């Protein structure tokens, strides 16, 4: 099976952020693989363990630092990595990112495409479904279980919905899924994996390698334009309730009903 995994590098989730010159910054914080993309890489590696003739290619777009994240995916067990890198790719919105990814993925054959459910920086949840539409393959989002048949031709796919789940039975390849927590437990790269990754090559692809017109790759073609970034409004300073446990419970119940009028 030929498996494509799309990953994004994001700011560490523990980072405290500031806004400087219309950009989110977090001095000193590391960049990590988007947590949901780890589920995607892990799932690919598990499929390959069950079906050794599989091949895993990871794709990521972004600045040079993205190579670190691609290396991590290689160390987890991916076979090849492709870095979509070009100054022209900067500042593009997700609809354009999906178009570039689609163009790069279409350069080879594939059976399965795995993405994360959303990136924890822009939280758009757009690229996965958009990519599937552009690749003209079926897709299922927010997947918590991917159960292949014995011959790996079809799969039963469980998706999270509000208050429960739904299962699509016997989906035939090719398809794209966006991965959600619950799908698996992503491994930490082993020392052996890290060593092996050093020997694997990261291929660079630029806009011209992909035959993309420069005219398309212009932030002016974005459909979503940021006007302003702001920090969330400060919450008003809270009150610590004092007294015996019984007193406190009474006070809180009264406040919630009479002052906050929530119940």
């Amino acid at each position, binding site marked *: 099976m030929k498996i494509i995994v799309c990953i994004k590098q994001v700011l560490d989730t523990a980072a405290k952020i500031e806004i400087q010159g219309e950009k989110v910054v977090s001095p000193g914080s590391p960049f990590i693989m988007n947590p949901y993309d780890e589920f995607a890489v892990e799932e690919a590696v598990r499929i390959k363990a069950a079906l050794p003739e599989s091949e895993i290619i990871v794709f990521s777009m972004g600045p040079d630092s993205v190579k670190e994240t691609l290396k991590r995916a290689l160390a987890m067990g991916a076979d090849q990595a492709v870095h979509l890198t070009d100054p022209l790719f900067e500042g593009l919105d997700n609809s354009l990112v999906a178009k570039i990814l689609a163009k790069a993925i279409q350069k080879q054959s594939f059976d399965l495409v795995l993405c994360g459910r959303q990136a924890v920086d822009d939280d758009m949840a757009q690229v996965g479904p958009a990519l599937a539409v552009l690749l003209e393959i079926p897709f299922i*989002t927010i997947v918590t279980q991917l159960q292949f048949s014995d011959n790996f031709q079809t799969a039963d796919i469980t998706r999270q919905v509000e208050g429960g789940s739904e299962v699509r039975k016997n989906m035939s390849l090719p398809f794209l899924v966006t991965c959600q927590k619950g799908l698996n437990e992503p491994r930490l790269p082993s020392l052996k994996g890290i060593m092996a990754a050093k020997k694997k090559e990261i291929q660079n692809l630029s806009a011209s390698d992909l035959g993309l017109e420069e005219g398309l790759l212009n932030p002016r073609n974005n459909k979503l334009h940021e006007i302003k970034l702001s*920090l969330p409004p400060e919450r008003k300073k809270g009150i610590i309730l004092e007294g015996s446990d019984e007193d406190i419970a009474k006070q809180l119940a009264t406040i919630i009903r009479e002052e906050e009028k929530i119940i």
Partner: protein
Amino acid sequence: MDNKFTIVVVVEHDQNAIKPVTFEVLNAARTIADSVIAYYFSDNAEVDVEPLIQGGADEVKICHNSDFASYTHETYAAALKAEIEKTQPDLILLSASNNGKELAAEMATRLDVGLATDCVDLQLSEGEVIVKRPVFSGKAYSLCRLSGAKPYLVTLRPNIFRGEGTAETRTGNVVKEEINLPDFSKIVGELTREVGAELDVTEARIIVSGGLGMQAPENFKFLEDLAEVLGAAVAASRPVVDNGWQEYSHQVGQTGRTVSPDLYIACGISGAVQHLAGMSSSRCIVAINSDPHAPIFSVADYGIVGDALKIVPLLTKEFKNILGDQG
């Protein structure tokens, strides 16, 4: 076309029970649109749509086909694409539910138009659609403008746009039409759904949430009791989920669900950045923690320094008293 601003709302329902989030979307639509058209994709032509009109729809279009027995993005996207060719809306508005976000992303790509997901504010300013959306799981907010071909697609975060709700005096048209759908049976195959009676954390108005400070899985019974009295949903921090004490769908935080209830009661939760990211936009936050320096107190409106295992049962009793007394 005239310059009336038309919004299409896609009704989200579960076996023809309309989801409360749909009324929030209608409410948001009504406040900025000249005309609101609600599309109801159903397997049943006889569904009751009066609440949608009371909620703000000027027209409800019931598009029926037996393939609408359950939502699938394939059927919804195909129907919506065909329908909006007739109605030519400026904006398609959905809830930022799992289905809503999926459908919006698909539609935006098929139509090659702009998309903004999970918005907490929606304005129409001199003909431009301006939205505000949390990024970095709510650690920052991005004010954005949509541009390019229409209709734009916008999904709205649940619990933010409740407004004043429905009005019985509103009137509107109801149109019913049986519509054709492409055959998706090869792709969709057999679909089974398992949805419990339990309130989803993203849809709950009150959330009682537990962290590792609850000490043991059996102590979540205290939270369930309190939740039952308040009509609340139970949520949890990540390690609670990782320990298997609660299901993942209950995890609140940057890698869990993002919630904005009226009341969030955090019990034995330290308040790590990743947790705060998922709940700090709640209207009122109560924190119960034995450590007076726990970071959760920095976002709490009301803090209780103490043992959650003792305080939660007392709260259950007090709320029961109050609610019992005054109905």
